[in-house]
């Protein structure tokens, strides 16, 4: 085995080795962090600033990263914290989600108002395939940010409930209720859109 090259640190001084590790491990996740940031901020400029800030902070905190753990989750955590701090600074508490814990994850999974509404015209939800990506992303951007974060991490970035719980600093049960509630809101909007566009028949809007 010629593992010599891989096992030997490329640089001899701690400073460069630190940098090399970061570039090898963290930088490859930049696209994922960018997508997450884009969904959080809603604008390309905002996302680019957030990504830059995230990687800058991640680099400074790199010695706190535990090698072997999921670097992507670690970066998402930093990204979320930077985002929340930015929001706080701007004093925009416009979309505070009230946690009505009465509606638990189980009933959110069991009951499906949008499915019920479209059941007759399109029982298997084929209309979702007709909706253009931009509309879907817009619908995600319109979610309250706590729901949005859960939906993006789960449904776009494919993280587990546990990973999301760690990033968002909430219990797994809360992850589920936010995620399922976010999905329900999304379905409602996409269904309304599909009716409007004539993909399916039915009445758009609230039911």
């Amino acid at each position, binding site marked *: 085995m010629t593992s010599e090259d891989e096992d030997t640190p490329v640089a001899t001084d701690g400073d460069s080795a630190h940098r090399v590790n970061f570039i090898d491990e963290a930088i490859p996740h930049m696209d994922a962090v960018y997508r997450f940031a884009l969904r959080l901020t809603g604008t390309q400029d905002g996302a680019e600033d957030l990504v830059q800030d995230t990687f800058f902070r991640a680099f400074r905190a790199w010695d706190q990263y535990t090698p072997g753990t999921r670097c992507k989750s670690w970066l998402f955590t930093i990204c979320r914290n930077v985002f929340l701090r930015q929001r706080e600074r701007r004093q925009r508490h416009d979309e505070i989600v009230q946690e009505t814990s009465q509606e638990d994850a189980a009933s959110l999974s069991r009951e499906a108002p949008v499915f019920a509404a479209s059941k007759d015209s399109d029982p298997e*939800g084929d209309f979702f395939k007709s909706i253009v990506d931009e509309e879907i992303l817009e619908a995600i951007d319109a979610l309250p940010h706590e729901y949005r974060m859960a939906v993006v991490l789960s449904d776009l970035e494919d993280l587990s409930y546990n990973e999301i719980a760690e990033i968002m600093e909430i219990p797994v049960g809360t992850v589920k209720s936010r995620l399922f509630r976010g999905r329900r809101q999304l379905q409602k909007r996409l269904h309304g859109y599909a009716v409007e566009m004539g993909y399916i028949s039915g009445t758009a809007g609230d039911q």
Partner: protein
Amino acid sequence: MKPFDSLRKLFGSIGGGGENHGDDDGVMISCDEAKTRLFEYLDGELGEISHDEVKLHVERCKACDPRFQFERHFLDALQAAEERGAASPELKDRILKVLAEEPGNDPS
């Protein structure tokens, strides 16, 4: 999820209410139960036994199948919408440049 669910189902023999539209061979969970675990099932978050129970139910239950297809099509649409987003090369260059100027935290 709960380790005793499947046993309870076996012994309680569908006593727990809820309709069951599938072939009833005595071990199927109810529609209600399947729907309760539906998202966790689709997200791959259930333990093996629980996952198999839901899988078996969906495969056999004509009433539940559309709902599962519906959710799957929904989740597929979300996944497909995201695939294209990527950081611009300019952003990558900018970040790498900033990091190059930043002193690393030398542990010494």
